């Protein structure tokens, strides 16, 4: 079934063979033996639903949620057996929840449909029967020849046939696919490149054989068999001839291409599949709580059932003369009755599981995440980027980060690249410009390093003018020289170098290679190797990125061999990559070293402060980088990841297992021996893989004891592996990964929270992250302010929901003791239904959107406050128990308060008339609604007009609604239990006094606990709140304004205090040290904090 659905949606297409054979323009061979392969059409379907399947499919998905399913079961039970409440009481809230969710999902799907239609209906030009036909994008078939004009987006994965240029090349930007902003050159095979008109193309008879669709954007293997004059020509096809859907044609007037992958089989569509769902820690504890409540619920139901049967053992209670059973009830089987009684109690108490919790949490997350995008502090003016929230499910997780990994480039963003030195640069750097787009004065390059190098070269007089066809023009000191580009040996991460083979104007052929010093130097046989090595190390120490440059001259004989071998390797269908690697290895040897270059990465501003702040917040920072050891260490020092005072331990250059283990043990010993100093650990990629293979535990042990860890020379997958390792380590920390490049994606997706930095290196990281920000420094606001707020908000939200439902249902349970466990409800069904969806829903929702328990500036300036909420503290079992017990005690107060008031069986009315059971229930309910709302008010520290509106509005709404509801004899309602009950209740003076008394008593407990907690062992957050408003205490002390003038006095002073407090550095640093004696021993941090605050 599931497979079927997936297939219908275009996933898992049935693969018959390993390759697909495409007849260009669908001209199939005439011999008739051939059965054409079937391909899917070019329709992109990102929507989940259609009009027809929306209701069943959406319902099915919603009821897969445990909570919804549970309520559905309860609802069905109510429909089937005789239960105390009508099915409406649980059906309506369920309906409400399901509808709200369905509307949200339907709306999102509608948007997806719209964009699908827009994409599928976009006009495209297809060559059909000798002419150009305009059609819709969705009608493109595999094998169709498509014409694309300049700046258009490719509608399918195309193999380039020809462009308006003679050499059949075109330029594309793949920014929306992989985020790389540079222009990429794609080339057609020479045989088709000449077919530049529709008429010519019509004569083309060719077949493309290529692999089946796969997601890797940079892999494509195939060949084109062209039949020309009864002769078959075979040409290899590689990624350079594949134009990907979603990419955009640039600087080229028009191209023709043949569709090879369409619709959901395009690489773009395949790439957007399955992002695994991340669940936040809050959600996990929420589920734990739900289970606890389920246990409470079931045990309450069991207790009630057992007690019921104990009572019923006696005839006089089971069936007194005044209350006979029907024949049917008498005759039903005992076991059936027992089960149905149990179910009835389950239904009676089922509201203890908060039905609207999920929908409220979802709304809170959805709406709340807007605030991140709206935040001006997270907006970067220069690049016009605001923060993006890709997953709203994790907002609160931002408040829970324990470990924090960042890829280094994140810090060292590139838009201020500077060349610090170009050494012994003899011949000029023509070769390096091979991948540059020539169009503007501005250079587009695939890596910032290349761009920087070309710009720097231009500055010293060697100007790269451009490349036309297969030559490149370089102006050396005003003199134009033309180099012919023969081959490009592309960069790959295994070789860590790239080379070009060019023909100089003099006719000599050269190979130029550039790459990491470790990959170039061993290959060199000449040049000033030792001197360069020293230079390179120096550069690295300064935190520069280094490259070595070398060359090799070919004799024409050598070149012929190379040329042939390269061609063979490139046209191979099988194992092309391996063969190419072999050839490259063969070519790139015996190099003569030319020199080295170094590029400085400027750190983004405030990186140091941010890292310091993270550390102060109790977050362990790991830096994972691909840079070399020395560079990484020096940048770590410059960005404050390592301190000068730190004892830096190294685990590098480990060759064997045993050696690595020995080193680890030694490190562990060193840590225990001198534990006073902070430790920093440096690991490199190879040592790390050794350490992880055999000695994971030992390694993690060492890492935990180090305050800073730096991993250099890391491969992308290794980064993800490190994160996974940290995640499963015994402390189960919450991890956050920050990165900006495509190589950080795996890490970002692996971490609990992935943050992408929207940098110049592309947006792939940003797109795959949960949150994307424009600058690294924004991280501190994102974590310390938004993360902190969201955590507080959602934690309170969850706890409060459980609390209010305990309050709601416990009186119901207690009442059973007074009504022979007959499952009589205490409240009217309308109240039962509306309690969660009307009377108590809004204040908590608004609280969870607007609450700021402490000023955001204070939060940002005092990262230590973040420690207060670490380890999911507000959702710990202890806090949970507190809320639950509070709920129970409140419920006891409502119930027994009302019991003693009414149960003394005296009249409460001035005219001597009596109340009945519904009045009793309404009294309890009224007290409950008020108490629960005011309890929310006590939790609120940030009272905007909206909070006032919903808080007092809820109570007023309850009163107005009840007056209205009780004021009418409702037609169509079976019973008129509530007729005038509420009005009668309010006409009783005693009831008013009792309501006030009970509300005050309930809140008394809570206020006492809060005040004593704050007074006796305040958390640092509470202290910070106090510094913010300590004026009010002084106020009481001096009794200057006690009691009536207190509020005005305090508010004025508070205002003053805030004005002063925000911008006076002395004030903040004083309050800082006062409230954090814990940190006073750490001088460096303290001074920094002062510095930091003075910048405000």
């Amino acid at each position, binding site marked *: 079934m599931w497979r079927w659905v997936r297939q219908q949606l275009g996933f898992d297409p049935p693969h018959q063979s390993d390759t697909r054979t495409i007849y260009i323009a669908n001209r199939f061979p005439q011999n008739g033996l051939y059965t054409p392969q079937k391909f899917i059409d070019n329709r*992109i379907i990102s929507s*989940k639903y259609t009009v027809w399947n929306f209701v069943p499919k959406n319902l099915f998905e919603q009821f897969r949620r445990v909570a919804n399913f549970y309520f559905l079961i309860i609802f069905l039970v109510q429909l089937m057996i005789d239960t105390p409440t009508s099915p409406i009481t649980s059906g309506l809230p369920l309906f409400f929840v399901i509808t709200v969710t369905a509307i949200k999902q339907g709306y999102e799907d509608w948007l997806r449909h719209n*964009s699908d239609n*827009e994409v599928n209906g976009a006009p495209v030009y297809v060559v059909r029967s000798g002419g150009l036909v305009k059609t819709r994008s969705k009608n493109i078939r595999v094998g169709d020849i498509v014409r694309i004009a300049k700046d258009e987006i490719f509608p399918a994965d195309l193999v380039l046939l020809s462009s308006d240029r003679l050499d059949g090349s075109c330029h594309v930007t793949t920014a*929306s696919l992989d985020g790389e902003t540079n222009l990429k050159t794609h080339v057609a095979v020479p045989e088709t490149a000449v077919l530049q008109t529709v008429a010519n193309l019509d004569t083309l008879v060719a077949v493309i054989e290529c692999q089946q669709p796969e997601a890797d954007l940079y892999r494509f293997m195939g060949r084109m068999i062209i039949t020309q004059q009864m002769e078959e020509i075979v040409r290899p096809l590689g990624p350079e001839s594949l134009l990907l859907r*979603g990419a955009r044609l640039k600087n080229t007037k028009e191209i023709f291409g043949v569709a090879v992958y369409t619709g959901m089989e395009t690489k773009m569509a395949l790439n*957007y599949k399955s*992002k695994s769902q991340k669940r936040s820690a809050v959600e996990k504890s929420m589920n734990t709580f739900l289970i606890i409540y389920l246990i409470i619920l079931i045990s309450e139901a069991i207790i009630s059932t057992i007690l019921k049967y104990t009572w019923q053992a006696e005839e*006089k209670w089971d069936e*007194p*003369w*005044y*209350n*006979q*059973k029907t*024949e049917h009830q008498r005759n039903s089987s005992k076991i059936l009755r027992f089960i149905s009684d149990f179910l009835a109690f389950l239904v009676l108490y089922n509201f203890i599981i908060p039905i609207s919790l999920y929908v409220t949490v979802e709304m809170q997350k959805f709406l709340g995440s*807007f*605030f991140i*995008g*709206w935040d001006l502090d997270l*907006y970067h003016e220069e690049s*016009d*980027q*605001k923060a993006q929230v890709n997953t709203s499910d994790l907002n609160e997780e931002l408040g829970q980060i324990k470990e924090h990994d960042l890829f280094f480039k994140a810090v060292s963003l590139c838009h201020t690249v500077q060349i610090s030195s170009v050494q012994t640069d003899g011949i000029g750097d023509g070769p390096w410009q091979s991948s540059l787009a020539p169009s503007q004065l501005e250079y587009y390059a695939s890596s910032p390093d290349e761009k920087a190098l070309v710009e720097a070269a231009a500055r010293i007089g060697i100007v790269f003018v451009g490349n036309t066809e297969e030559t490149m023009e370089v102006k050396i000191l005003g003199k134009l020289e033309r180099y012919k580009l023969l081959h490009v040996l592309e960069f790959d991460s295994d070789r860590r170098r790239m080379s070009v083979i060019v023909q100089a104007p003099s006719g000599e052929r050269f190979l130029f290679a550039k790459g990491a010093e470790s990959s170039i130097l061993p290959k060199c046989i000449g040049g000033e190797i030792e001197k360069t090595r020293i230079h390179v190390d120096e550069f690295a120490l300064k935190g520069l990125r280094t490259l070595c440059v070398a060359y090799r001259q070919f004799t024409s004989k050598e070149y012929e061999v190379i040329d042939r071998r390269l061609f063979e390797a490139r046209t191979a269908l099988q194992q092309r990559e391996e063969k190419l690697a072999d050839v490259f290895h063969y070519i790139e040897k015996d190099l003569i070293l030319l020199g080295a270059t170094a590029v400085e990465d400027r750190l983004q501003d405030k990186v140091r402060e941010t890292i310091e702040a993270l550390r102060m917040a109790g977050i362990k920072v790991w830096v994972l980088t691909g840079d070399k050891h020395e560079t990484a260490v020096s940048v770590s020092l410059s960005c404050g990841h390592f301190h000068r005072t730190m004892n830096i331990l190294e685990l590098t250059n480990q060759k064997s297992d045993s050696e690595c283990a020995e080193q680890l043990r030694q490190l562990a010993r060193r840590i225990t021996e001198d534990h006073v100093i902070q430790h920093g650990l440096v690991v490199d990629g190879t040592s790390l893989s050794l350490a992880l293979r055999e000695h994971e535990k030992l390694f993690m042990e060492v890492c935990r004891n180090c305050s800073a860890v730096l991993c250099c020379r890391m491969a992308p997958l290794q980064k993800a592996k490190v994160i996974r390792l940290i995640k499963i380590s015994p402390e189960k920390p919450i991890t956050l990964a920050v990165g900006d490049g495509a190589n950080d994606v795996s890490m970002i997706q692996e971490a609990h929270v992935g943050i992408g930095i929207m940098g110049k290196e*592309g947006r792939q990281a940003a797109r795959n992250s949960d949150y994307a920000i424009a600058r690294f420094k924004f991280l501190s606001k994102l974590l310390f302010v938004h993360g902190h707020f969201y955590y507080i908000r959602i934690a309170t939200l969850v706890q409060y929901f459980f609390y209010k439902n305990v309050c709601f249902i416990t009186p119901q349970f207690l009442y059973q003791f007074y*009504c022979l466990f*007959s499952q009589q409800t205490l409240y009217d069904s309308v109240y039962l239904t509306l309690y969660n969806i009307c009377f108590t829903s809004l204040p908590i929702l608004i609280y969870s959107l607007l609450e*700021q328990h402490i000023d*955001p500036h204070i939060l940002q300036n005092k990262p230590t406050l973040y420690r207060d909420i670490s380890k999911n503290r507000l959702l710990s079992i202890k806090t949970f128990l507190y809320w639950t017990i509070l709920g129970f005690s409140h419920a006891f107060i409502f119930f027994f308060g009302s019991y003693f008031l*009414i*149960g*003394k069986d005296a*009249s*409460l009315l*001035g*005219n*001597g008339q*009596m109340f*009945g*059971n519904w009045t*009793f229930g309404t009294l309890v309910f009224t007290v409950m609604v008020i108490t629960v709302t005011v309890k929310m008010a006590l939790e609120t*520290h940030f009272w905007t*007009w909206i909070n006032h509106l919903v808080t007092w509005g809820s109570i007023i709404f309850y009163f107005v609604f009840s007056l209205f509801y009780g004021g009418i004899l409702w037609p169509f309602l*079976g019973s008129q239990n509530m007729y*005038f009950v509420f009005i009668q209740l309010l006409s009783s003076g*005693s009831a008013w006094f009792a309501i006030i008394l009970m509300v005050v*008593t309930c809140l008394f407990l809570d206020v006492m606990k*809060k*005040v004593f907690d*704050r*007074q*006796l062992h305040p958390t640092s957050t509470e202290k910070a709140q*106090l510094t913010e*408003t300590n004026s*009010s*205490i002084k*106020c009481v*002390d001096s009794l200057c304004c006690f009691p009536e003038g207190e509020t005005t006095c305090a508010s004025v002073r508070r205002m003053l205090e805030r004005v002063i407090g925000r911008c006076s550095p002395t004030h903040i640093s*004083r309050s800082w040290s*006062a409230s954090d004696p814990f940190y006073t021993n750490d001088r460096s941090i303290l001074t920094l904090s002062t510095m930091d605050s003075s910048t405000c």
Partner: protein
Amino acid sequence: MAMNYNAKDEVDGGPPCPPGGTAKTRRPDNTAFKQQRLPAWQPILTAGTVLPTFFIIGLIFIPIGIGIFVTSNNIREIEIDYTGTEPSSPCNKCLSPDVTPCICTINFTLEKSFEGNVFMYYGLSNFYQNHRRYVKSRDDSQLNGDPSALLNPSKECEPYRRNEDKPIAPCGAIANSMFNDTLELFLISNESDPTPVPIPLKKKGIAWWTDKNVKFRNPPGGENLEERFKGTTKPVNWLKPVYMLDSDIDNSGFVNEDFIVWMRTAALPTFRKLYRLIERKNDLHPTLPAGRYYLNITYNYPVHSFDGRKRMILSTISWMGGKNPFLGIAYIAIGSISFLLGVVLLVINHKYRNNSNTADITI
């Protein structure tokens, strides 16, 4: 089914266009709401802010409590149990079902006179009017005079829905078990004259006005109540049909106030229901002067099968109802605790401030 792919990416995805290309920036609006800078009142529950509240609560609650307590104490109330389970009780004879009708008389003395309006209640114990099966065993449409419901009562009334193929009016367990003892009160005005003076008991005004006038209505039809209830039969346990509950047509049928009072099910198994009013005659004479009284009971209602008790209660009333010391005591208690905690908090607060002051100075 993780399909996070959004086709829109294809259209407008990608990085921002080269600078200068678009005039529209994505700069978020600088509004107070979006920047979470709405003006807000930020109260903090510190000892400082809570202290005065505690004292105020104490200062307000204690006097209120005393007031309520005194009011409640001034209310006169006398309760007479006439279940008759004790052999010495005059009503003991009525326990056997053979004696019908059984009338018994209980003597009691009022030590002090009852001023103002006096309310006469009957009280039942161990009677579960709040049992679910019982509570729902009624048909409000029928009681509201709906003709179709009259002849075809709700299924909730089972097994008191039909009798001998005729619909029961009023149907259901509540109506069927209506309290049917008759209580009469006589004053023995002076020792010399043994003829007891009957105390006038008012039947009207014991039910909620809205119940009597809106919620409960006799079925429509002719003048004659009997005709309006044609086609129905009386509840099994009743002696008379519903239209003969009272001779007064305004107090008979469904709108009979004794019936309405009974139909308002009690919250707890021990309850009172208002039976009669004894109105104040004039300011000069107390309503019930001190002295000896007879309570005359027509004993019909069986309670001993479920260990029930029956009581008759005479009570005066204040603006806040009958005698109930709980509220007053609770107010005094909470008020005192609040005051006490205020004092404790003051001490703690003082100590704490001293500590933190010194801490401030050291740094």
